[in-house]
């Protein structure tokens, strides 16, 4: 996962955190997703799912827990969602905590 600050689409610099999620998101991501809230420094957080694969119900539970913890102090935006992710997030209430980003996927993540 990556964390970085980048320029917004309008050109104005907006500080935010950025996390790139890769691979299958399931029970094995427990530790990783628990750590994310403590790494958030800004009031805007982007989660990039363009490299994410299958997300099962345990993965959804972990994402919800993570987003709930971040949501009290930062706005969460989701990007790189596949049609499958969209369906899944809509039916499981993920979009009630985190909205899809309007802009296309950002580039230049720093590892």
């Amino acid at each position, binding site marked *: 996962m990556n964390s970085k600050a980048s320029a917004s689409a309008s050109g104005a610099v907006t500080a935010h955190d950025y996390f790139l999620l890769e691979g299958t998101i*399931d029970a094995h991501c427990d530790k990783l997703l628990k750590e994310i809230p403590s790494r958030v420094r800004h009031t805007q957080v982007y989660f990039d799912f363009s490299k994410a694969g299958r997300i*099962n119900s*345990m993965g959804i539970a972990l994402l919800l827990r993570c987003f709930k913890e971040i949501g009290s102090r930062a706005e969460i935006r989701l990007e790189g969602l596949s049609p499958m992710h969209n369906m899944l997030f*809509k039916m*499981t209430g993920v979009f009630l905590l985190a909205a899809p980003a309007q802009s296309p996927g950002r580039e230049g993540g720093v590892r």
Partner: protein
Amino acid sequence: MLPMQTVAVLYLDEEDRKFWSPSLDRIPELFSITVAGCLSLALDRVRRLRGSLGLLVISARLYPGKYPELARLLRELAPGLELLLISSEDSSPALGQLFADDIRHLAIDSRQGVPSRGCLPAVVSLLIEQRHWEIGSCLKPGTTVYSFQLRSSEDKEPLIAALEAVLTGDGEEIALLREKGALLADELLENALYNAPRGSRGDRLFQKGERRDLLPRERIVFSFGFDGETLALKLTDNWGSLAPDSVLEYLARNQEEDSVADGDGGRGLFIIWRFLDQFHVEVLPGQQTAVGGHLQLSSRLDPEAPRGFHIAEYKKEMAA
């Protein structure tokens, strides 16, 4: 062989009857009752059929919306009678009411109709003949059904890969079916590996994510088949620990739009239900649970809409 039993269908009106007749008229011993504004007369006709009635099919245009008391009245009239609710996609019933009335069988028709209605007679015959759901019932004759018996949790990913390998082809439709199939297999396998095994007090024996071997007498069988249009999946375990009442409760709870509980709460079963066109759960308490269903490559059901389900409890053993 069971004696011939009557299937009665309760329609709201003539328009409702015409909508369903292309699929239901093929069912033998079918008795149509159109309420047409006079419920007491319709109930009287049901009363007269009681002796031979094996299944009562109710249109969702009648219940729960128009006559919310209907299920209760029918149960008073014919205790123990099996009720099947049929609904078009645009008038999907509220699950809370179905849960309260213990309606365990729902068939949903897509707006465009014909393809998904092909399985309605199969659902009716399943209920009237008190048969167990078979994976091949909605597949074309001759379709290969693959079955695998698990040895450990390490078998999960290879089995998902085997399923994906059967769903070959290019294009968005088949790619989406592959993704759905993989997720369904994941949820079914996780459910059998980690939710089904219970101790004597009902506590879970294994935690999700941990590597585990199957216990000496434990049996988990994963089956699937694809006939080029329909994908069918089934997972059977020999725990029989899933309570049918809990299934409907899980579906109803997770369907609430403001539900963002981060716990488990049956979300896996909810996801399975919502990605299938028809969802089947059959339980032989303490002995066997079978969970599965089918979905079509060109499913026209709205991904956000509720799906059909068949939740049954049996006394005799099911085939894996």
